[in-house]
């Protein structure tokens, strides 16, 4: 561990800039790095210069060129793969990308654990040394010296960077760095000796194989690193955290000493990952053997034991329930119900609070319950009665987790049920009350008041549903009609929304579709470099067009027509035998199409018949019934919900709202092209029935549907368009919004406009939200049990609490640390800033204290940033905001969260298994 971190920090000290952009597993290559790499002799500036005219032609804004795209030109295919697999932070945005990252991290953790365990075992079993220096073996003494000198080197490097010490270079590399590397070498030698001697002594063939495999991995990694073309170094260097102005290449394209360091760093990173894979393989084999021996009966027995223990011995679950009820009884003491004009907040307030309360209580319970039991068992030696039974160690761990999760499940259900009752009483009651108030206001003739209350009621009910939003991909057009990635920045502190100017050509345009290019690629289709991955944001036509309605039938006709068009396209250049088969198929489809068309016409006739009857019917209820029947034949209008903000540059007429126009454009229309930058307007899709109907298509009465509305800022503006707009769209659609009021601006972000695919049940959604809490509890249980396997209970409890606090509260800070975005330096430097009341931006004077603090930061930050790999991101599993805002939690989200939770819980439980196994062996 120390050697690893020492190496990282030395690398950092050499790089001399921000800590290596080491750790964020999901970090995608950030565009700024490539753009700022200004080495004169690389192809990057050339490529960017090449990009400029294109960008200017396409509309001014410089498109970002991904560094990976440029890198791709330098590297052979196998090298790219090697980098992807070997570099711990490199990932790809495809489904297996996160899994690969996970394997890499678990491998590295496994490597650390394996090396640590063997070092301990080896040191414990060492025989008395023959030669000693001051009572220690020469190699141990050398290690101690190396560590001290290594730390000294960091200090010296810091002082040199602050220009307090002169720079001393040997062959172009700072002397201090060389000495540091020497120290690392000593560390590595020590590790080798200890590992070999320990493993050979124990004669464990598996581990000998692992050790050999690790050395092979090291060789492979060195080979790959050396094969990297020097032209790629600037980009690879940027990934390692080298400052943009570091010269890694000489003008002749040779590596500078810094370049050599970069190559070595790449080699080491890759070696560590590959060694990790070797250890991972070993662990996987061991665990698989153990898992195959697991029997559900024994798991159940262990689980039941934990369940009984929780309820009978500690009684914590009862306490949790009691506290929950107690707090609920007095919520009005703590929660200020929103002002009578802001009723919509009631639901968010209560749902948010109840979820938070459930989450806090459950996590506290888990944090207290899980780490206590195992250490107590060990302390009172009751564990012996368990382990002497024919039960496997993994069964002890997983069984315990199962039992605790049983308790958590029971509690989640109980708390959820109580919460729902409470919500029903409070919010349901409030809705009733509002309805009454509206009726009263209407009777009293207070139409203004009634209108306000109705808006509140509507918002409250919206929040208390489970809307399934379907979003599109947003691009802008500026006031001169040029396409833009973003609108105007009106100078708000956070640019959450970007704005379009009123009464100009400026507009925001949302594109929906199953396969649409990234906005950058849409606006700048000819830019150099690799394309971003395609986006899939289709309109769920199947959900929105109801089965058996006129529009559904029309859509079916188009489905057949598309199939036919595809077959006809295949006819070109087909073999004669194939041709006849295709012809037969086409005529079959044509017949089918005709049949559907007849059916369609019959349905439309029935519809107009019903409408006419309704008009003719004198009886009002009869007419309403007929109209209802007629409406049942049509799909309901497609609901659109929008939340925009308004920015006024003039006061306008007092009380007058800002107006906006909205246009829905069918993909057959040429008015909303896929590539707004290109001059010729071609439709997104070619109408396969265009020839049949000519310009007058009865299936799609209008290709463009537009309307105006007044913007109510921060409210959910609701609107709907006819379902016939979706017929034949294959999920493609464009929605454009413009601001109509001159001198005013309309602000929007991509998520501000969405189609509502369905209104699910709030109850089910709330339970799904609780599932998020359940997952949090599961991860925490795994951590608690893991900590309990090797620590006494107070320490285990603290560790569990630490993990929870770090994951829930400090995760953003860890993220900043790991990605090197910490403004104002690491913890020690920040401490100096806090004490001396200096702000985060000023450069601190290079006093001894500051250099010391920076050196300590240089040592601590790389270690702390490793925490981001192991600390679970608890807040990501928390879905309560979605529930509170009235959005449906989709199964995909829940599934992703389950995987996320498992990816933390499983490694922790496996680690617990190994610790428990070795601990009993050692005891």
């Amino acid at each position, binding site marked *: 561990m120390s050697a690893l971190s020492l190496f990282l920090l030395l690398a950092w000290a050499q790089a001399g800039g921000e800590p290596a952009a080491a750790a964020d597993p999901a970090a995608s290559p950030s565009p700024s790095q490539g753009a700022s790499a200004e080495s004169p002799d690389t192809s990057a500036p050339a490529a960017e210069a090449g990009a400029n005219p294109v960008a200017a032609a396409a509309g001014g804004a410089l498109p970002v060129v991904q560094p990976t795209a440029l890198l791709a030109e330098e590297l052979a295919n196998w090298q790219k793969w090697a980098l992807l697999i070997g570099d711990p932070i490199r990932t790809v945005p495809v489904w297996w990308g996160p899994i690969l990252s996970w394997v890499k991290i678990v491998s590295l953790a496994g490597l650390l654990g394996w090396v640590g365990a063997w070092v301990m075992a080896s040191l414990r079993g060492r025989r008395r040394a023959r030669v000693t220096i001051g009572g220690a073996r020469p190699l141990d003494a050398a290690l101690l010296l190396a560590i001290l000198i290594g730390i000294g080197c960091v200090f010296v490097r810091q002082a040199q960077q602050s220009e307090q010490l002169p720079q001393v270079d040997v062959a172009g590399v700072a002397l201090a760095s060389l000495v540091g590397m020497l120290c690392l070498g000593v560390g590595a030698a020590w590790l080798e000796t200890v590992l070999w001697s320990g493993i050979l002594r124990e004669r464990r063939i598996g581990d000998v194989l692992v050790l050999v495999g690790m050395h092979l991995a090291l060789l492979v990694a060195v080979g790959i690193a050396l094969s990297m073309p020097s032209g790629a170094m600037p980009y690879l260097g940027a990934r390692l955290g080298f400052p943009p102005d570091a010269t890694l290449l000489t003008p002749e394209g040779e590596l500078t000493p810094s370049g050599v360091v970069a190559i070595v760093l790449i080699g080491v990173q890759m070696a560590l990952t590959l060694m990790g894979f070797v250890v991972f393989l070993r662990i996987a084999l061991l665990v698989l053997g153990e898992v195959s021996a697991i029997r559900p009966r024994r798991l159940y027995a262990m689980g039941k034991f934990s369940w009984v223990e929780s309820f009978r011995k500690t009684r914590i679950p009862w306490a949790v329930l009691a506290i929950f009820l107690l707090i609920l009884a*007095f919520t*009005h*003491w*703590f*929660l*200020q119900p*929103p*002002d*009578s*004009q*802001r009723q919509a*907040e009631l639901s*968010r*307030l209560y749902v948010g609070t109840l979820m938070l309360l459930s989450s806090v209580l459950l996590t506290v319970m888990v944090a207290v319950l899980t780490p206590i039991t195992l250490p107590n068992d060990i302390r009172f030696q009751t564990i012996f009665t368990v382990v002497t039974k024919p039960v496997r160690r993994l069964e002890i761990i997983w069984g315990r987790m199962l039992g605790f999760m049983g308790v958590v499940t029971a509690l989640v259900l109980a708390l959820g049920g109580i919460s729902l009752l409470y919500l029903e009483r409070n919010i349901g009651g409030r809705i009733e009350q509002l309805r009454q108030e509206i009726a009263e206001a209407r009777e009293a003739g*207070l139409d*203004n*008041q009634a209108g*306000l209350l109705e808006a509140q009621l509507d918002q409250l009910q919206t929040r208390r549903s489970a809307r399934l939003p379907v979003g599109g991909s947003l691009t802008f057009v500026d006031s001169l009609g040029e396409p833009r990635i973003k609108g105007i920045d009106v100078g708000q*502190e*956070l640019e*959450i929304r970007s704005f379009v100017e009123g009464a100009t050509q400026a507009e925001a345009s949302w594109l929906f579709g199953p396969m649409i290019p990234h906005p950058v690629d849409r606006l700048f289709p000819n830019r150099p470099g690799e394309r971003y991955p395609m986006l899939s944001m289709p309109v769920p036509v199947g959900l929105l067009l109801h089965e058996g309605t006129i529009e559904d039938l029309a859509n079916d006709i188009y489905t057949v027509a598309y199939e036919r068009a595809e077959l006809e396209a295949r006819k070109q250049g087909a073999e004669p035998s194939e041709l006849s088969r295709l012809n037969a198929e086409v005529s079959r489809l044509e017949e089918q199409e005709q049949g559907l068309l007849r059916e369609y016409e019959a349905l439309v006739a029935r519809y107009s018949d019903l409408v006419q009857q309704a008009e003719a019917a004198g009886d009002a209820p009869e007419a309403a019934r007929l109209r209802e029947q007629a409406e049942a034949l049509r799909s309901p209008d497609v609901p659109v919900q929008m939340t925009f*903000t*308004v920015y*006024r540059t003039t*006061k306008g*007429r*007092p*009380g007058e*709202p*800002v107006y906006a126009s909205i246009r829905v454009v069918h993909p057959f229309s040429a008015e909303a092209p896929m590539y707004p930058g290109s001059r010729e307007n071609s439709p997104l899709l070619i109408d396969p029935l265009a020839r049949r109907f000519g310009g007058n298509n009865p299936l799609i009465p209008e290709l463009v549907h537009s309307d105006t509305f007044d*913007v*109510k*800022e*921060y409210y959910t503006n609701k609107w709907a368009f006819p379902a016939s707009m979706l017929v034949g769209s294959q999920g493609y659609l464009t929605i454009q919004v413009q601001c109509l009021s001159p001198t005013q601006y309309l602000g929007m972000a991509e998520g501000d406009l969405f189609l509502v695919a369905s209104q699910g049940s709030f109850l089910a959604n709330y339970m799904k939200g609780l599932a998020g809490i359940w997952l949090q509890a599961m991860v925490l249980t795994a951590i608690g049990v893991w900590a309990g396997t090797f620590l006494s209970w107070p320490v285990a409890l603290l560790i569990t609490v630490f993990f929870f606090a770090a994951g829930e509260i400090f995760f953003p800070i860890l993220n900043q640390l790991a990605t090197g975005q910490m403004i104002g330096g690491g913890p020690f430097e920040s401490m100096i800033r806090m004490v001396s009341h200096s702000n985060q931006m000023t450069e601190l004077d290079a006093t001894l204290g500051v250099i010391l603090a920076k050196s300590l930061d240089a040592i601590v930050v790389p270690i702390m940033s490793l925490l981001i790999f192991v600390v679970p991101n608890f807040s990501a599993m928390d879905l309560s905001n979605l529930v509170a805002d009235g959005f449906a939690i989709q199964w995909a989200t829940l599934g992703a969260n389950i995987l996320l939770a498992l990816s933390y819980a499983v490694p922790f439980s496996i680690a617990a298994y190994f610790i428990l196994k070795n601990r009993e062996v050692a005891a």
Partner: protein
Amino acid sequence: MNTLSIRSKQILYALLIVGIFALMIPYGQWLQREKQAKDLGEATIGQVDAGSFMLKLAMIGGARGVVANALWMQAQDLQRRQEWDLLKTKVDFITKLQPHFLSIWTFQGWNLAYNVSVEWDDPADKYTWIKNGINFLREGVENNPRSPDLVWDTAWTYYHKIGFADEAIILRQLFHEDQDEEFRTDPIDNRVYDDNFKVSRGWFEMAVDRADEFSRVATELEAPVEYVDPVENRKGRPGDLAFRTMPAHAQTRYAAALEKRSKVNVPAQFGEKARSEWGLAEQEWLKFGEYEFRSPNALRIQGELVAQPIVIGDILRPEVITNLKTDTQYWAQLLSEYEGKDIREVTLEEAERLTENKMAWTNRWADQNNFRYWIERCRAEMEPDGVRARQLFYEGYLAYLNADFPKAADLYQEGLDLWKTVLDRYPTYRDDDLNRKDTGQTVLRYREALLQAGRELPEDMPFADMMAEAELDPTLDPFDALDMLGPIGEADDSGSE
């Protein structure tokens, strides 16, 4: 160590416990006395809030400061992210934790009423957030009834944020229609009013009362009330003249707003109602005029440095002051009583200096507050002819806006003639810039109406001299719906008849 038996250990511990408890009794009594002496304790500082108490208990007292800080930072972050409702919830939570933390009440009350409300586009939403801010401040007042600052902030928000906003005509209308009677209640006379200026007058008066009370408490007690953040009181310091004019300003605003369409859907009111409100405004100004300020400078009289009382209202009767020039007796008595200085007699020369000083300060402060103008304005406006003239102007303007120019010209003419007879009695008001613009604008409209009606301009047009100035400044009155929106919904307007 281990020689004691278990039993004797138990006895020892029991004794220790009893002993510590016994020690606590005198300490508790001392604490109680201290609390009373220094006017501390929940019940005296403000209302006792069960939720707040429980939260404080849960945070084990001291840690709540840290929690409040963290919450404040979160609140700011929410504001940046435009999560206004969550901001409000967070802020409410801080006040539960630290109800005697004055800064949070002052700052967040202002923040909600001013910064958050402005982010919302619909005036109804703006009104809701202003109301949120005011209610927040009022809750602060309930929790800290002794702080004049919070009362003043409440009053100011009622007065300024509703009454002087860009959308004041709509906001005031919303206030007029508000069903929440508690919100529209004057804290002094406990009556429900339909006008924010009228309600703010009560709050301003309360602020003045609290400031007087505060300075009394501050001098009587050893130390004033210890708030979490013992800020120096911002409002109601001895020399704060403007602070004491606010009740009068609010009442004057109310009376003036009555006589125009200052709420979108409420017609102007004249007659007895307007007269009596102008009368009340005059009374408020006279009340301000009676307040005894202390002169900021000191003169050396009989070897002692002495200040003297200044009463701004004396400026209405300058002879009262000038008569004092020779009244050495008066000065001797006053100075010996005023600050307890040992002054038996005053020479004539000293009396003259004292009188001049008094005159200088009275004059200066009266000018500073435009005191004479306000008094004369109230008196002019409360005259039956004054009110009648205003009504004629209003009706004339309506006719003018409805393009009935002959009628407008007639009404204006009648009004201006009346107005001239009134203003001739009040020269200060007549010659003041504000009036010159206001009346000048009326004359301009009169001229326009005459021209449109095809009539000649009369030779002796009243206030003709004010036209040139008014022409240079064509800005409309943002607080008059007729100016801002034109003749809207006048069908049901009784004032136009």
